[in-house]
């Protein structure tokens, strides 16, 4: 009975968690999902067409999603789940952007991928929402507001990558070697190189300890067991007890990568720097630095998310 109860409880909990985690599914067009049915078809087509160009040039994606409600989730949590479930933006550059409208809750939220955080801060995002979306959203002109906001976001992302908005670029954009990658192989190569000395040292110390133990063990055991056993009458004929060879498996301990490339804002360690009273913008901290290739995880058939992820910041309605 106990087992049965446990099973039932587990299934119920699992079901609950599944329901809690549910977000809307992406549509075939991927870039726009108008579940609240507030967008014009032309706007939807426009968003898709513009995104096709943007993705081809930069790997960035701007998804617009409208829902009636977000259930038990706050709009920011819902946006975070949706963003990462859909994998908006390039997996390597995490340069996706999500605009979520919860029409029934009279709220909206925009969330950027982690790779965009330092170029399009949440403060900037909030500003764009306030100027482009808020007036129309407040007047329930959702379609107009979304279009204006999409244009503003598109323009902003294009400018980050140095591409004239609305035009397809054939040249390699400057982001190609940017270092804000999540889990790119190049990154681990970098870390491996940085910490190979640590790995080598730790390996040497471990080998040394193992050798010491081994020598003591062998000498102690061999000292007592390798005694002469005389056979027959000849005092010169001798045999030894032999021990089976010992096999040691040595596993190197790789130090997990840490302390990698840093975002422009923080400096090192705790990242605090003495501050004058003037304004500083997080989004204007220098250009892109170089690492690796663009890596467009591409369209094989229908549109899809590039596998990008967000850390869950973003900006909402003020």
């Amino acid at each position: 009975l106990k087992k049965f109860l446990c099973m039932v409880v587990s299934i119920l909990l699992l079901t609950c968690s599944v329901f809690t985690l549910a977000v809307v599914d992406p549509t075939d067009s991927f870039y726009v999902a108008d579940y609240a049915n507030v967008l014009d078809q032309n706007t939807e087509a426009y968003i898709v067409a513009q995104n096709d160009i943007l993705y081809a040039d930069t790997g960035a994606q701007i998804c617009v999603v409208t829902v009636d409600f977000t259930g038990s989730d706050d709009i920011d949590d819902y946006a975070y789940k949706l963003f990462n479930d859909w994998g908006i933006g390039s997996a390597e550059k995490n340069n996706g952007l999500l605009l979520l409208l919860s029409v029934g809750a009279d709220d909206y939220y925009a969330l950027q991928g982690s790779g965009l955080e330092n170029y399009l801060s949440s403060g900037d995002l909030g500003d764009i929402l306030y100027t482009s979306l808020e007036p129309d959203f407040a007047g329930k002109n959702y379609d107009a507001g979304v279009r204006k906001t999409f244009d503003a976001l598109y323009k902003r992302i294009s400018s980050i990558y140095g591409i004239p908005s609305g035009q397809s670029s054939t040249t390699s954009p400057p982001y190609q070697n940017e270092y804000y990658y999540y889990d790119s192989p190049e990154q681990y190569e970098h870390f491996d190189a940085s910490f190979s000395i640590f790995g080598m040292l730790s390996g040497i110390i471990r080998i040394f300890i193992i050798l010491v133990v081994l020598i003591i063990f062998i000498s102690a055991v061999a000292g007592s067991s390798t005694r002469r056993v005389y056979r027959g009458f000849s005092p010169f004929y001798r045999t030894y007890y032999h021990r089976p060879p010992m096999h040691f498996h040595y596993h190197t301990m790789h130090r997990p990568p840490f302390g990698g490339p840093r975002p422009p804002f923080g400096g090192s360690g705790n990242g605090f720097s003495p501050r004058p009273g003037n304004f500083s913008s997080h989004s204007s901290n220098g250009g892109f630095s170089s690492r690796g290739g663009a890596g467009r995880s591409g369209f094989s058939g229908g549109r899809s998310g590039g596998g990008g992820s967000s850390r869950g910041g973003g900006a909402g309605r003020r």
Partner: protein
Amino acid sequence: LNLTYKKKRRIAWIVTFVIAILSVFILGGWKLNRKCENVEDYFFNGKNGFSIANDIAVRVECGYNLLTVSDRLSFDTDAVDELRSALTDTQNALTVREYYKANEALTFAFDTLYTQISQSAADESIKRLAAKQADEFSSRLKTIQKDPYNEKALAFNEELNYFPANIIAFLSGTDHVDLFRNGG
């Protein structure tokens, strides 16, 4: 002869056993310490430079920016002093626990001053400047709340509760790591 041989053999086994045990604990302790350091390091350096410490650093910047706005408005209230003090405390924080406490105080002080500014500022552009800082400030808090540091710290602390990690931790002096939450 036989007796000596047996005695020697026994001693050899004992010595070997003791050395083996010691090396397990020494190596284990060393490994555990490194694991502990890695967890703590995650708080400060995180993954790809994204970490709670860096998010807090950005929040501190927002705080100073808000102070600049308050200067422009010639604000001279307790809220200004409180925010300034909270910013200093946050900058002086060294441990995870200190960071948490300082961040809590910072959130409160920032919100108080921001509310005062947004209510009293007549100039729309000033309001927008303050709102932009508030957006970034609260956005970073949301990011912090979703950071996997606490999961990592919990997993490590959990590991320390079980054999042989608990014995190794006891012998090597490795302690539980602080969580970034109330009470550590």
